[in-house]
Structures are given as structure tokens and as C-alpha cells.
């Protein structure tokens, strides 16, 4: 049996629900470390926890974007785990926002000011808001209710969301640290491989044909 086929065999038996457990345990574990000032949380737990949740959220969002190209290139089909990955990403985005609003900025009026006045907060907040309908419709009932075409269209919001998230990180930092630019490069690469070149070619050919007729 080929390796992809063997992996697909494992995928059939390994359920997705442990991803939710891992996400929640990880989230609580980081919070507990921060609460007790352990490890990297020893000196400034608020800022470090905020960034930690944000970075995990970004990684989960990017992980979700890997499912399709992995299937296209290797035949390994991990689509069964995509909902759990996406919802876990949302959980960390929510936690990231709550640490920002409640522990860091500490007042509703200042949160509003930050969202309006600071472009990097604006794009991060936009990504959060756009994620809400996706999280709400990440269940079988919603797929049935919306129908697969509309549901898929709605969930294409993932693309702007992940770009906004990458931008949010780049916009926040000082100088040229590697991480935010590396994440953005991966995001752009994952979007690039989705471009339907044949579709564009056909479209252009059709347009040229109609222009010359």
C-alpha cells in the first residue's frame, strides 16, 4: 500500500474530537502558566499571553489552509479534521481578543478607541468579526440549511481572514523580526497555489475571442 493510502487508512480511524480537547487543554494550560507567572510568563504575563494566543490562532488558521493542497498534491485527505482545526482557531482568536480587551486594554471605551484608531487592531478585529459567521456555521445543520454551494462561498471568507491576521501581526511589530513575515509568506503561498490558472487562461481566451469577433 502506498504511504498516502496508508495515512488515509489511519485518518479513517482517528477521530477529530481530540483536536478540540487538545485546543482547550492547551488554552487553559497557557492561562495557568500565565496566572502563576511561570516560564515565559514570569515578567509580563499579559502581553505574552496575548501574543501566545494570537500566534496559536494564526498557526491554526494557516493549518486549515494546508488541507486542500495536501490532498491535491499527495492524495492524503485530512478534510475530516478541518472543522476542528477551524473552530479551535476561532477559540484562540476569541481568547486572544478577550486577553486584549479585558486584561490588557482594560476598558470598553479604550477598546473601541483602539479598534477605530489603530490600523493593526482594526484589521485584527475585522478578522475576528469575519470569523464569527464561519464559527457559527461550522456544523452539519448549517451546511444543510445553507446548501453546500452557499456554505462553501461563505467559508471562502477564510482567505481574507487569514490575510488580515497575517497583516495584523506584521503591523504590530517593530523592526524586521522573522516570524510575522514568514507567516505571511506561507499564507500568500497557500493562496497562490489555489489560483485556478486554467480558469484564468480560459477566461482570458474567451474574452479575447469575444473582443475579436
Amino acid at each position, binding site marked *: 500500500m502506498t504511504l498516502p493510502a496508508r495515512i488515509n487508512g489511519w485518518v479513517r480511524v482517528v477521530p477529530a474530537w481530540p483536536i478540540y480537547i487538545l485546543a482547550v487543554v492547551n488554552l487553559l494550560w497557557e492561562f495557568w502558566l*500565565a*496566572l502563576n*507567572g511561570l516560564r*515565559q*510568563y*514570569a*515578567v*509580563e*504575563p*499579559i*502581553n*505574552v*499571553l496575548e501574543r501566545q494566543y494570537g500566534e496559536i490562532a494564526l498557526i491554526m488558521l494557516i493549518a486549515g489552509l494546508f488541507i486542500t493542497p495536501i490532498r491535491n498534491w499527495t492524495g492524503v485527505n485530512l478534510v475530516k479534521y478541518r472543522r476542528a482545526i477551524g473552530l479551535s482557531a476561532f477559540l484562540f482568536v476569541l481568547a486572544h481578543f478577550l486577553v486584549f480587551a479585558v*486584561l*490588557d*486594554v*482594560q476598558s470598553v471605551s*479604550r477598546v473601541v*478607541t*483602539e479598534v477605530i*484608531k*489603530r*490600523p*493593526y487592531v482594526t484589521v485584527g478585529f475585522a478578522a475576528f468579526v469575519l470569523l464569527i459567521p464561519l464559527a457559527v456555521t461550522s456544523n452539519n445543520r448549517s451546511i444543510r440549511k445553507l446548501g453546500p454551494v452557499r456554505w462553501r462561498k461563505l467559508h471562502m471568507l477564510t482567505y481574507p481572514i487569514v490575510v488580515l491576521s497575517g497583516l495584523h501581526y506584521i*503591523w*504590530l*511589530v*517593530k*523592526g*524586521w*523580526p*522573522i516570524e510575522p513575515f514568514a507567516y505571511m509568506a506561507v499564507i500568500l503561498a497557500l493562496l497562490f497555489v489555489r489560483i485556478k490558472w486554467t480558469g484564468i487562461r480560459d477566461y482570458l481566451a474567451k474574452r479575447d475571442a469575444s473582443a475579436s469577433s
Partner: protein
Amino acid sequence: GLGAIAVAGGARAQDALVPNSFEDITTYNNFYEFGTGKTDPVQNASAMVVDPWTVTIDGMVDNPGEYALADLLDGLETEERIYRFRCVEAWSMVVPWNGVELADILDKVGVQDGAQYVAFETVVQPENMPGVRRNVIDFPYVEGLRLEEARHPLTMMATGIYGEPMPKQNGAPMRLVVPWKYGFKSIKSIVRITLTDTQPPTTWNNINAREYGFYSNVNPTVDHPRWSQATERLIGGGLFSSRQDTLMFNGYEEEVASLYEGMDLTANY
């Protein structure tokens, strides 16, 4: 003399100051030569060579030259100063520095008439500095002050913290401390001091002039373009520590406001 003013002035501003722990001060640092993360300096700085240490003093001075650190500091009065330290990133700490007044060093080397600025430069040791090898910003790190700022009695060259020799991650063996300015003005691990009559380039100003002015005085009424400077978080307070209001000139308004009389601080941020 100047020292007496500094002690009196400093004491007022320091009234309620409780220093952060040695651990806080030495494990949460910005020192991009060692990486951009807050714990990169403590993890990577041990490789920096700080002995022997030579400081080049040049430009408009009577006694230019390459000074061994001990010679430069020889005979100068060392004191402890407990200062607020306010980072441009809107966090702060309180640090008990040990060191000398910069003015004493300037007197020792003899500042010539016509000099108006003091420029500083940080050491570059690529083999010992991962951030330098990765070019996270342009190195060497450079900073500068107007001569009156440099001569102000609150301005010091620190060589220690809590009576210990300056830890490498905090800018060993000698760094600037200008308590009323954002922390990045207080350049670390200094190897060159230049007296000049023209405003010297400064690292963060070069990177983004709109975000980091030459003056970079702590000012709660002038926001950084990307975040508010009205409040700050004193580090070390745990997960539920409150923000506190940022003070004009970081609480040293009485001592230093006269340096900027008549200046528009919104334009000269």
C-alpha cells in the same frame, strides 16, 4: 553642584518608587542585537565580550582617544539612582541604576565650543550577536542627544544595577540612561561617543521617522501612530495588573521641562 540638584530633583520624582526585582529587570529586555524577543537578550547575551572594553571618544572634544573603560570612569563619583524606565511599547519598570553622570564624563574629555549634540554607538560583535547576523535592523545601533540633554544632571552612564556590574542583556559594561525619554534612547553597550554640531542620525528614527522622533520624550498626549501612549503597564504585577497613567516626561517634568521651553512637543516628538 549639579550632583546635588540631581539628587534633590531625583529624590522628588522617586518618592514612591519601588524597584522591580533584579529578575524582572534582567529577563525582559529589548536588545535587538540578540534578537527581537523579550527573552532573547538574557538567552543570547552571555556570548558578548565586554572585557576589555574600549570607548572611542571623538569629534569636538579636547581629549579625543580610545579610552579603556576603567580610565574613562576613573575618579568619577558613582551613585545609585532609582529611575522609572518607560518603554515606547507602553510598559515600564523601575530600575535602581548605578553609574556616573554623563556630564562628568563630558567634562573629563573636554567639550569644545560649538558642539551641540552627543552621538553614541553600540558595539557590534556579529559572531556573538544573532540579531546582528540576521540584520533585524541596521547595526550598529546609534543614538543621540542634544548637548543640554546630555549634560542634564538626571542623565547618567550606568555601569550596574542593584550594585551588580551591568548584566550583559541590559547593556554591559556601560549604557546611557535618560529617564524622561522612551527606553530606546538609553543606548546600550556603548563603544563610541562623538561630540558634533549637527544632529546625529538615530536608529529608530532612521527606521521610521513618523513613529520615532529624535527627541522621543515620554509624553502621554502624543500617541505612537500605532498605539496609545496615555497609559502604561508597570511590569511585574502579574496577569491582573492594572494600567497606570503615563506621566509627562515620565514623571521628571519639573526637572527637564525647561529643556524644551517654547518647543512644540507634538512636532518635536
